């Protein structure tokens, strides 16, 4: 470990520690805002953990998010809270492995839409089960968890997610993912067990996503499939990660935070023209930042540092 790494780790720990104090400074609305933002940061980062390097764009995010939320809703009365999270994570992982095995043969847009279909299928099945087997629809969550508690849990999850993503980025498995993303045929011929690697990472990514759903659910009091499995969540996660730059550690973060704040600002200030402004800004971003927020920042940075034109390509594309 060189000096730079140690500095980076120290910086990371300091940032997390500082963020942990935020609830004492910002007031309740600030905490709410941070919860929403952190939620998406974790979702986008966890999503990019698998989808970034392998380029398997997944729209199944909400399936896992919803499974997390639903698990909490179903068992909130019968299982003590910390264990509840574990159970949710376990269910999420189990579903992820089944899904992972099912999707192994799919590539490109077929994978994308398959995962979307899958999320919808899960939602339909949960609905059907609730209606026909338990005879109710909609469940109540009355857990004594404060917003601050939710915030800290999310922060911890974020810290863990970043640590894992960072570790993967410099480990062998990170390289394996990038090789898979480029050419699976080459990957197997290099000796990579692509099934294993893909399953492991998909499982990991989905487990984290499940936990986000599980942690956030107590905020809603009432959960029903249309609430827990709202496909917007899948789309926003994907958009945030892509906009930031899905193949780097901090890319999703740099997509999630500004977008989230933009949504919030627009909907607060232009409740009636929100969609139009949002759309226009979005299109503008795509045109102005062709390679994502992170790449843009890096380019400006090199430009400023070296004061010379940047070359057309960077190694990571």
């Amino acid at each position, binding site marked *: 470990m060189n000096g730079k790494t140690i500095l980076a780790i120290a910086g990371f720990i300091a940032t997390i520690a500082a963020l942990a104090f935020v609830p004492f400074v910002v007031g309740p609305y600030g905490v709410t805002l941070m919860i929403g933002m952190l939620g998406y940061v974790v979702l986008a980062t966890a999503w990019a953990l698998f989808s970034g390097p392998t380029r398997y764009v997944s729209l199944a995010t909400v399936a896992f998010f919803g499974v997390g939320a639903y698990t909490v809703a179903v068992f909130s009365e019968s299982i003590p809270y910390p264990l509840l999270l574990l159970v949710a994570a376990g269910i999420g992982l189990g579903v992820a492995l089944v899904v992972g095995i099912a999707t192994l043969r799919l590539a490109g847009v077929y994978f994308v839409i398959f995962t979307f279909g899958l999320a919808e299928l899960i939602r339909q099945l949960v609905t059907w089960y609730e209606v026909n087997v338990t005879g109710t629809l909609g469940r109540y969550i009355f857990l004594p968890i404060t917003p601050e508690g939710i915030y800290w849990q999310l922060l911890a999850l974020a810290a863990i997610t970043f640590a894992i993503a960072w570790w993967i980025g410099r480990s*062998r498995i990170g*390289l*394996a993912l*990038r*090789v898979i*993303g*480029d*050419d699976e*045929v*080459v*990957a*197997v*011929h*290099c*000796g*990579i*067990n*692509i099934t294993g690697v893909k399953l492991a990472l998909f499982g990991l990514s989905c487990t984290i996503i499940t936990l986000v759903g599980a942690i956030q659910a107590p905020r809603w009091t009432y959960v029903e499939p249309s609430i827990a499995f709202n496909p917007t969540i899948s789309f926003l996660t994907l958009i945030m990660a892509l906009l930031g730059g899905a193949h780097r550690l901090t890319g999703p973060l740099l997509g999630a935070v500004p977008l989230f704040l933009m949504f919030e600002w627009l909907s607060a200030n232009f409740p009636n023209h929100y969609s139009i402004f949002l759309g226009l800004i979005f299109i503008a971003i795509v045109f102005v930042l062709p390679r994502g927020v992170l790449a843009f920042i890096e380019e400006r940075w090199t430009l400023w540092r070296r004061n010379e034109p940047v070359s057309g*390509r960077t*190694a*990571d*594309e």
Partner: protein
Amino acid sequence: MSELLTITGLTKRFGGLTAVNAVSFSIVRGEVIGLLGPNGSGKTTVLNMISGHLSPTGGTIALGEETISGLAPNRIALKGVARTFQLVRGLPSLTVRENVVASLAFGRRKLWGEEADREALRRLEEVGLAGRAEHSAQDLTYIDQKRMELARALAADPELLLLDEWLAGLNPTELRTGIDLILSLKERGITILLVEHVMDAIRAVCNRCVVMNAGRKIADAPTAQALADPHVVTAYLGDAHA
């Protein structure tokens, strides 16, 4: 004398087309064998089956004593079979060095970190690409990509190396270098199965040639003898080489 690779009755059908039809041959450890044949005669398909990229419709492939047909390509790779592709398959978003590290890290060596980087550079030097190690793989010319592919295959530390038209497109000077490189690999004891249309190279490096036509084996003999076979001349070489 021990057989490294034994192929028996190997067959591959694509729908109605039998691309490889009951082909049998074997390769002795340390040999360099040419696999020749007209375009579409099934050579690449044979390589694809050996490396596990395609699974055979019939027949078996054995590496040493062990049957490898039907295994996943990564399992076969770990048993010491490495290959290049007829249409190069670089990993465009990785650097040239990382392309090589990919096979060091997951192949038989399991090298990682600085050690892997050093080893990768050594491999790149071998094929004359050390200078471009930090370039993005997609900026290489076609030929350089082929070099990189060879470095990647070598990094797997193979016992059996499958080269699919690796020398195609080299000019005579480069060809010379290429041939020397293959010869040096042979020196090192790597067994090579070479698919090639460049006769000069075949003559220079192959002990023996297996010739295919329309999916069938039509000759299997020491190089000079195989190339003089009248069937081979009509089907493959044409009058100019007679």
